[in-house]
């Protein structure tokens, strides 16, 4: 079946409702169609969460990159950097940081590694690229899912209208 780059299947478009309704009862068909919509909605939800978490992560990486850049620029000087350092939430203390050629990056899973500022910059920049690509893909998926959900909703409306019309025709025939 036709699918998008992340393997989300394309929703089938009902070309001809009369033809489509020949196999199953209207109730069964409507049930089947709504089930498909729920599956798409489930995927939509998971992509929304993904998007949300990336939208938080990206500014964080950018912030880290900003301070690494600052430290990198200060490397040539011998003057220490005078800071107000966050010791805890809302608690800052004066700290003097001598010019440094290395920084420690928290990699997760209880691991921290020391990098030169150049390496750190490179690593963070590549993480930023990955996160931005992920966000772009999540948005693409969400727009693709929107398309499929709309197709399914229109399918449902058309089957429903078809059923209403059939019932009316039957009533008129028996009257």
């Amino acid at each position, binding site marked *: 079946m036709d699918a998008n780059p992340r393997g989300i299947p394309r929703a089938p478009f009902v070309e001809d409702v009369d033809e489509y309704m020949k196999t199953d009862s209207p109730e069964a068909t409507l049930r089947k169609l*709504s089930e498909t919509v729920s599956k798409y909605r489930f995927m939509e939800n998971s992509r929304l969460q993904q998007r949300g978490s990336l939208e938080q992560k990206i500014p964080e990486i950018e912030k880290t990159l*900003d*301070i690494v850049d600052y430290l990198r620029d200060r490397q040539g000087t011998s003057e220490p950097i005078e800071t*107000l350092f966050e010791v805890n939430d809302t608690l800052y203390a004066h700290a003097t940081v001598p010019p440094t050629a290395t920084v420690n990056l928290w990699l997760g899973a209880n691991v921290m590694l020391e990098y030169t500022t150049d390496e750190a910059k490179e690593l963070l920049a590549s993480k930023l690229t990955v996160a931005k690509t992920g966000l772009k893909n999540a948005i693409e998926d969400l727009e693709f899912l929107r398309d499929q959900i709309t197709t399914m909703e229109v399918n449902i409306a058309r089957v429903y209208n078809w059923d209403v019309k059939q019932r009316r025709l039957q009533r008129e025939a028996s009257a």
Partner: protein
Amino acid sequence: MSSSRFPLLQRKEERDAEVTWEDQQRINEFSKLNTRYERLDDEYKREKEEDEYLDDLIMELELLDDDEPINYKVGDVFIKMALEDAQARVQRDKSRLSTRVGGLDAELAATQAKMDDLKKVLYAKFGQAINLEKS
């Protein structure tokens, strides 16, 4: 049953206008553009607000004494730096943000224009049977 906001062919409204694959694609496109518009608009509002904060900040910095270093936040830490260094950073952030705001503004306008075009085509064919308005 499922209650989507739009666009959806109205139930109960019995219409004989057949939905072709081209129509379906137009309906999908409209729905997609509409979600895109909302997403971009949210971002636009956020960035616009930030942009205005930076304007205020630029004004405030103007009023400060040149000789006094200030504490300016870089990452999570406040760094004592010369006023002009802080101003340069603010200016850099400001120009990035203004570019982004301008870009979003243009994207929003383009999205709206495409939606308006689709609306005309879809209403011409389906009339009352379709609802393309925000509820």
